[in-house]
């Protein structure tokens, strides 16, 4: 099989509420920009794979209306329910099958037109969890508490992640939150659900992202440098939070293991040059670093405090600012992939991580990181 590469990408400047935009207009914008970023037109695209959320959109089968904006009219098209990074994995499979040369991946979320709280409450099955009113924040708080208690992580751990990512977001022109904060700011921000503070939670965002994936032959024929896909994996943990080892991000561990195995990565801390991960809440970055094997279990806080994961560190984690600075649900993980591709190819909109050649992109899903998808891209 020939190699497969990400050849083009685009994302919106993510905002709290894009009042003057519709779902269709932000989709059209990123699709047009992603195509022009690799010098292709919609006629060059063989298959469109998209991701969206009916509950977030407030309608059934939301692709019914998005077909035109995605340029999928009279094309092979399929929709993946979950993060856009999962759609990118499916698009990769389509191309790896040898039956398609190019694929367009589209993901969008417009939380301002919905209620992210109700959206995540509805993820609970109706018998045991839903009557408790569990939502993304309260489920995450239970997990943060379990994690911090189990490993003796201090409040400065998660708070430090928020401070680090907000500092990085200043350099990302697409980020929604672009101002630095301090540990004191985090500690004095309101408590959403103990131990999670307001500044440790990702913002509610509107945004979209599109990525073009192609067969090696196509990728090599283009002027712009492609990001080669060398590994991918996705996984799921048990459903009920009570049935899991909540202090471990097991789905992320298993998804990254598959991705690393395919990419021939045995020592991620040494072999990766940067990581873009989807931390809906700051503590998740610590857990994810452990799950990816960047440090031993329970040592996420030490890794952070060693400054290895800062923009100028040994292995920058979320040099884009991550989900802490913009979290357009459904698109977040695909944005991570776009940011990772930009870094390894040098096609960045902001400053570059010098010498970055290999990157991991991650998407999360479900309550308290029940699901995960990972992709490794390289120069």
């Amino acid at each position, binding site marked *: 099989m020939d190699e497969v590469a990400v050849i083009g990408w685009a994302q919106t400047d993510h905002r709290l509420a894009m009042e003057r935009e519709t779902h269709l207009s932000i989709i059209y914008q990123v699709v047009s920009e992603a195509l022009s970023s690799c010098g292709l037109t919609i006629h060059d695209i063989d298959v469109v794979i998209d991701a969206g959320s*009916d509950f977030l959109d407030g309608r059934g*089968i939301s*692709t*019914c*209306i998005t077909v035109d904006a995605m340029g999928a009219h009279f094309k*092979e*098209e399929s929709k993946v329910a979950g993060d856009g990074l*999962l759609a990118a994995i499916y698009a990769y499979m389509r191309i790896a*099958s040898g039956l398609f040369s190019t694929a367009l991946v589209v993901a969008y979320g417009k939380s301002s037109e919905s209620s992210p709280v109700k959206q995540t409450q509805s993820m609970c099955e109706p018998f045991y969890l839903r009557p408790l009113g569990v939502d993304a924040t309260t489920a995450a708080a239970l997990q943060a508490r379990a994690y911090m208690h189990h490993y003796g992580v201090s409040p400065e751990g998660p708070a430090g992640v928020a401070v680090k990512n907000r500092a990085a977001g200043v350099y990302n022109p697409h980020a929604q939150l672009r101002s630095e904060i301090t540990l004191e700011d985090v500690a004095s921000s309101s408590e959403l659900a103990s131990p999670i503070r307001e500044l440790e939670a990702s913002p509610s965002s509107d945004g979209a992202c599109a990525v073009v994936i192609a067969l090696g032959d196509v990728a090599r024929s283009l002027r712009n440098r492609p990001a080669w896909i060398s590994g991918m994996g996705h996984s*799921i943990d048990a459903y009920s939070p009570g049935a899991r080892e909540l202090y471990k991000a097991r789905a992320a561990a298993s998804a990254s293991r598959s991705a690393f195995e395919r990419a021939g990565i045995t020592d991620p801390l040494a072999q990766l040059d940067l990581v873009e991960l989807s931390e809906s809440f700051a503590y998740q970055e610590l857990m994810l670093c452990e799950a990816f094997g960047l440090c031993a279990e329970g040592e996420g806080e030490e890794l952070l405090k060693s400054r290895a994961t800062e923009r100028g560190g040994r292995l920058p984690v979320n040099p884009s600012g991550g989900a802490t600075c913009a979290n357009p649900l459904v698109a977040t993980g695909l944005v991570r992939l776009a940011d990772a591709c930009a870094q390894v190819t040098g096609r960045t909109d902001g400053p570059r991580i010098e010498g970055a050649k290999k990157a991991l992109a991650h998407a999360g899903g479900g309550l308290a990181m029940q699901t995960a998808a990972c992709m490794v891209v390289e120069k």
Partner: protein
Amino acid sequence: MPELVREAASRALDDAGLTARDVDAFLVGSAPEIFEGVNYPENWIAPALGAAGKPVMRIHTGGTVGASTTIAGYYHVVSGMYDVVLAVAYQKLSDGVAQYGLSACYDPLWDRDFACGAPGLAGLQARQYLSRYSPDVTEEQAAMVAVKNRKNALLNPYAQLQMEITVEDVMASAPVAEPLKLLDCCPTSDGAAAVVIAEDRRARKLTSRPAWFAGVGTCSESPYVPHVDMAYPESCVRAAQQAYQMAWIYEPLKELDIAEVYEAFSFQELIWTEALGLCAPGEGGRLAESGETALGGAFPVNPSGGVLSSNPIGASAMIRQIEAAMQVMGKAGEHQVPGVRKALAHSWGGAIQFSTVTIFSEKL
């Protein structure tokens, strides 16, 4: 919901002589999750199938989703990434109000004031079709499909409506959305389906007679009803062309042996037989009337009883594929058509804008 899906998954695994441990990746398909009111239902369902720690992907393409999920499973395998995948699809319409859920598909700004579920749209489709071809196509011919498929269902133990009815019964049944009458319409169903897809060598080890994927085609079309030729939907024509090209089929009526089409409403079987190239445009009514599409005819269509006999929406398109595959594998039981070598499964979804065609063959 997880129990319902697990029942189908266990049967499929038993049929293949496998357990959940042998499965490398799982796929879940369901139509709008608003039907049951659980968001990201795969997170609840998949671990109940034994998927924890393994890849899970949910596909969501409306009425076509059962087929799209199988097709995604096919790509999981032909990409070389996984050897054995389990694809499940389901709907539990008794957990919600089906037509309310379907009305939520309409655009909130332009269409929702007029939204009236699926029969409203299918009624428009039937009217457009009749107005184009009348008097060559008649309501009675559509009624014949309702009679034929309910009769076929008598031989299908999985079917919900197993009825011996007459054309007069259909014509006299209560109007739903003109020209559709109650017996022209599918029922509301709970149900689940599951398929095991395996790579070449594994498949040969697991069964002496697998149903091979010979052709796969899907196509999506612009959503705006005035743009769509509902009487001859181009997404269906294109999906079929693509599948035929892949399967090297030039004359579908001669080279295929049976078809399982997604006829949620009786008229649709006439329309799909035309769009799939099984007869010329406007000839669907005559084909149905000729008896050729009945069990025992030259080209049985919906020997299982089709969607008119049971419609757990998210599963229905996968059930068409399962029925087509069972015909090829010789496993269809009482409604087995003798000597089936190639079988077609079709589905439609959205505002008659998504189409899939899958062709199974006894030979690779």
